[in-house]
């Protein structure tokens, strides 16, 4: 029987049991699994924990600056509070896309950075000295965006704003309530991460063949779902697309008041900071020292994920660089650029849009992750 004369074995040179004598593949090939433990250890120890701790420290400073301002509302303390808020806000962008685990549990993103702000509700709460930050209906009356409004109230000069706080005890109390709320939330998240980080690092199941899957609920699935969700809905859509009007399917009517940090006008720096942080995270860069560690890019390379014969990790990184270069063409306030420079911004938005399928379709299929955030039962 000639067929059986061919020596059988694994004929794939990439496999760990590749046999160079084998003439016919017998489907016995075994492949080395990517070292998810090292990946998760690097992401957790060198990005997630230090970025959350850094934000926690910024919020603590913000809270102290608020105390100072409340005690003595003057221009020095106001500017100190504003710059403390600005620093906190930028640091928030580094962790905004980590909305899984303890952050997801308390809905940290909605509690921290919902916009547009319901200014009527804010002013009524202050007037009546009555608010309940435990209720999600107040998410658009508190957090970083409420501070954007309260520290940059439209129509108020700095002096007028200082006088507003001098003469309004409720407003001072409201400022303090906001920063206390931010502190309580990030202290909880920070402690949970410190106490449960090993659960997270070890949360991938090894099956009978020694391979692990990235099924729903595994840490890698959680990371990638959160990353894609944040980029798609809260960066591409929330920070640029929605105020630009691209989601008004017929009229394309601009909605410039929907930008992040509408009242201070500090929108673009937050957008670019967030996209840059997503880039660092994908590439496994350390938060403190920027060292290149094991990241999702290495994982994509390991599974030979490609797009048009190019390494997918490279395609994604190039696209992020393109987006950052595009956004660099505009100046704050973004709300004015939307009205004055819409055509150029629409082209830039196209670049933001291109990244979505690269991470949501190509990256997820390469790494075997199911996108679960739009999983509606339909009943």
């Amino acid at each position, binding site marked *: 029987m000639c067929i059986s004369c061919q020596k059988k074995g694994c004929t794939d040179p990439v496999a760990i049991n590749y046999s160079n004598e084998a003439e016919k593949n017998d489907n016995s090939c075994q492949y080395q699994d990517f070292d998810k433990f090292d990946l998760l250890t690097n992401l957790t120890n060198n990005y997630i924990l230090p970025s959350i701790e850094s934000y926690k420290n910024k919020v603590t400073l913000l809270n102290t600056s608020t105390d100072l301002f409340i005690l003595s509302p003057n221009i020095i303390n106001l500017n100190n509070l504003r710059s403390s808020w600005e620093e906190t806000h930028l640091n928030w962008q580094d962790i905004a896309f980590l909305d899984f685990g303890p952050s*997801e549990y308390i809905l940290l993103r909605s509690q921290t950075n919902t916009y547009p702000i319901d200014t009527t509700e804010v002013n009524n709460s202050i007037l009546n000295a009555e608010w309940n930050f435990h209720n*999600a209906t107040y998410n658009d009356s508190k957090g970083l965006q409420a501070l954007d409004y309260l520290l940059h109230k439209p129509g108020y000069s700095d002096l007028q704003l200082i006088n507003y706080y001098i003469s309004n005890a409720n407003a001072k109390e409201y400022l303090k309530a906001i920063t206390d709320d931010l502190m309580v939330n990030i202290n909880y998240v920070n402690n949970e991460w410190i106490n449960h980080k090993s659960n997270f690092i070890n949360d991938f199941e090894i099956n009978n063949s020694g391979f692990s899957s990235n099924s729903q609920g595994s840490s890698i699935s*959680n990371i990638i779902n959160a990353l894609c969700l944040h980029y798609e809905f809260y960066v591409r859509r929330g920070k640029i697309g929605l105020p630009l009007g691209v989601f008004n399917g017929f009229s394309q009517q601009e909605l410039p008041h929907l930008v992040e940090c509408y009242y201070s006008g500090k929108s673009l720096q937050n957008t670019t900071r967030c996209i840059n942080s997503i880039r660092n995270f994908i590439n496994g860069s350390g938060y403190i020292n920027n060292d290149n560690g094991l990241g999702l890019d290495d994982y994509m390379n390991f599974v030979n994920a490609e797009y048009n014969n190019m390494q997918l990790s490279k395609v994604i990184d190039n696209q992020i660089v393109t987006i950052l270069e595009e956004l660099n063409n505009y100046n704050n306030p973004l709300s004015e650029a939307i009205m004055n420079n819409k055509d150029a911004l629409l082209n830039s938005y196209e670049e933001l849009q291109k990244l979505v399928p690269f991470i949501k379709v190509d990256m997820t299929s390469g790494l075997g992750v199911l996108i679960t*955030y739009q*999983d509606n039962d339909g009943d």
Partner: protein
Amino acid sequence: MTLINKISMLLIATVLFASCAKKGCMDPTAANYDSNAEKTDNNCDYSYTVPQNYEFTDLNGNNTVSFTGQTARMDMLSEMVTYLKTANNNAAVTLDAAVLLSMYDNTYTNWDDSELDDNGKQLKSKTALGDAGIQAMFEGWMTAAAAATPSSNASYLQDSSGLEWTQVIEKGLMSACFVSQLTSNYLGGISEDDNTEIIEGEFYTEMEHHWDEAYGYFTDAPDYPTNGTNRFWGKYANKSYLEDNIGSATDIATAFRTGRAAIASGNIADALYQAEIIKSESKQMVAGMALHYLNDVKAQVSSGGDQSSINHSMSEALAFIYGIQFVTDNPDMSYTEVMSIVNQIEQSVAGISQNIMEINSSIDQVAAASGLTDKKNDF
């Protein structure tokens, strides 16, 4: 021939004489049952092969599986839900409470599937092992749903607090009827069942039949999960949030097939072991559904979802929490424990949905009771 040899011959002859009654395995459930055996040789073979599909035949090739009554009850609930949903988003539809109540106790004679008319099966008598208080709760929901029609509410038929009766009735009966019957009634009593005699006029033993009836409340498809994922538990167990996290579909279906093969080969100990697996997996399946919808409410609140859609998910969460008390005769949460959450939600579905601390408190209680604390965010 020596004397000793002669004695030996005599002994052998004696033994041969004594064995004139033909020896063999006399247990008809064993794989090597010998119908000609007159005396047991204590060497019955209780080994078995677990089939790929839930398909079992006797030695003559007769199908030994039947669960028509269970499929009939699923069909009744499907028709009841279809009827309830005609009132969604349609101000021209008035529901008739008498129709709903008669569908519940099957005095209804106008089923789309006329085979259901007068078939002697009903959902009501199998609800919560006949508990009149629980039956009254479902009848109260049916009456209230009808009284609220015609409804001008958008999308869903909900009361002013946000309670959606269709969801609490459908998802509630999935546990109060289907899982209660599956776990408490059939598997709870399986060790008492006879497995030695074929029931007259049928091809199965009592134990085989009760095992099949339990399976029939999980799914009506022998080739599950290739088929049978269109409704009720067969549908939800295979959702990635259950299957990926705790393996509901695979574990339950495998245990059903393994246990049934064990029963058919007379291996009762193995079957009882599999029954315990099914019971404990069922507990986690129901609790996992409750966690899924509580998390779903949070996700919708987080993204500023439509309140009627949030109420829809909150009503489903309520129904699955309510259902935890019905899973086995030793449920993870008692009537009192379950009702303390259910009553609170039912009073103000929309209000509770916006209170993340309250929702998290429910999540923590359900997760702790069902041993799912580590995975509570993953459903």
